[in-house]
């Protein structure tokens, strides 16, 4: 579970990575892991700590698909939309799931329970279609098992 923003914790994270070469991505990853997103306070703090502009940090955060500026739902289901998963019907299963939840790609259920995001390949392409729930991979899905997977996250 993500914690609420805590300046001191954030400073500790930054301090731990600051001596590394190119510390930006390791810092952003850990801030997001800890606090669930990289908000305005985090961007300002990183800029100040690494002695670069806020715009530079913002530029990095916005470039990478992994980084979010607003928190996701309590659970994140990443469904693979790349070619190998398409070849096994993944797109239809995903579309059916989104439809049943009334969501578009990238959206979160109203109760904040689940965010559904696209991912382009999980390296499980010989057992497609695939998805990853909160970092745990699932393979050989079909319409039913994908629905069930989305229901597992409570």
């Amino acid at each position: 579970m993500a914690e609420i923003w805590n300046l001191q914790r954030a400073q500790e994270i930054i301090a731990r990575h600051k001596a590394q070469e190119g510390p930006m991505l390791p810092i952003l990853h850990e801030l997001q892991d800890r606090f669930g997103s990289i908000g305005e306070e985090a961007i300002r703090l990183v800029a100040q700590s690494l002695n670069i502009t806020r715009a530079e940090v913002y530029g990095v955060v916005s470039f990478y698909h992994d980084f979010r500026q607003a928190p996701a739902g309590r659970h994140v289901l990443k469904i693979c939309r790349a070619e190998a998963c398409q070849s096994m019907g993944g797109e239809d299963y995903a579309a059916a799931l989104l439809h049943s939840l009334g969501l578009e790609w990238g959206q979160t259920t109203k109760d904040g329970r689940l965010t559904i995001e696209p991912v382009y390949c999980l390296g499980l392409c010989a057992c497609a279609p695939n998805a990853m729930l909160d970092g745990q991979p699932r393979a050989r899905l079909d319409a039913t098992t994908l629905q069930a997977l989305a229901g597992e996250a409570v």
Partner: protein
Amino acid sequence: MRIFVPRDAAALALGADKLTAAIAAEAARQGVEATIIRNGSRGMFWLEPLVEIETPEGRVGFGPMTLADVPGLFADLPAHPKALGLVEAIPFLARQQRLTFARCGVIDPLSLNDYRAHGGLAGLERARGMTAEAICAEVTKSGLRGRGGAGFPTGVKWETVRKAEAAQKYIVCNADEGDSGTFADRLIMEADPFLLIEGIAIAGRAVGASRGYVYCRSEYPNAIKIFNEALRIATTAGMLEGFALELRVGAGAYVCGEETSLLESLEGKRGMVRAKPPIPALHGLFGQPTVVNNLISLATIPYILAEGAEAYAAFGMGRSRGTMPVQLAGNIKHGGLFEVAFGITLGELVNDIGGGTTTGRPVRAVQAGGPLGAYFAPSQFDTPYDYEAFAACKGLIGHGGLVVFDDTANMAKMARFAMEFCAHESCGKCTPCRIGAVRGAEVLDRMVAGHARPGDLDLVKDLCETMKFGSLCALGGFTPYPVMSAIEHFPEDFGGAPLPLAAE
């Protein structure tokens, strides 16, 4: 009793952890003393989770295993409903030439003793007795070409970095593996991580580099975990001899697999592609001379050093020397990793080895080389797996992925996806890629929906030409290949007449 249950991500995605717990519980219940080893995958994914039991005759396999199949493991083994016999006699494995992947699935990935007992470290030990120049020459002589996509001779790249003068040089391992249909890098990281560490240590000696990074995509949490563990073990054991190696995690940008974008990302910036020259070999990470190699290129080095360049070069055809880990993926019955000498035909790979489609329907198309690679039609199945032969078909081998589609595939949709993917992943530096791909997807959208306007097909072809010649890197430059190959081989999906049967 020694039992092997893979800790590979695909096996985990199919329930390997629950299976392990069930096997342990059943063994305890029956009072059988069982040691469970979490190996990597053999790369036969249609059989995962593949459980192996050591017997006096060799390791026998059971798969794909379910929880219901567990009690049978403690009864008459040959009568088990999932019994596969000796694992190494399974034709898919027996027909391979595993040089790089020889240990995958065999050993405990985190046992340095296992690694050594199965021939590990022999390459590094030989390299220690050689000059840097001799190591580079050995790699050049092996004919090894980069396995990340561009196929550039690895030895030539190393020699350039070796000759460059700088206080700090770097080895950067590209483990971004963004191509759909590929998992070879992941397999090494999860099944034989010391192999990569050994390859990097040799590279460091060869070019005089003392620092290195493995840049791994964030979509591989299991590989990241196993590799980091292996790195700690290797460092403690002194395997790296002071070479400072660190794993860095990407952040979901496909373009960061492009080597200069990757370097920008490692430096902590947006992954904007750099113009070349200067080449990374001379002006790479933090401006220093840098070897950027694909993970498989580096993982192939220990074999070359241990067995000699000639032994490696004895495999293959033409200018494609050695072996390639071909990754059979998508709608294919026997999906997995098949390491084989270059020269085997595409049709053999898809039909004989892969067994055709999972759905049992006819194969319609095969995308070779990831999202920037061409779609091949079955009429091209006699093409030998070789860099030049694929290039002659306007295709590419890339990182070795083959994604199979059955006859329900809509190739206009696939062409549209290629454009959409390019638009989604573009770094934004060049207009043809950034804008062209968006326009391409729009036009193809109309065609897929059946509202094509006159001239739409020509518009797509024009866009492809512009992208091909006006793009700085292969994201914009090669997206036209899947699009144009789909149009060429499957015209009926774009409102045209199908190709005559003779051409099929």
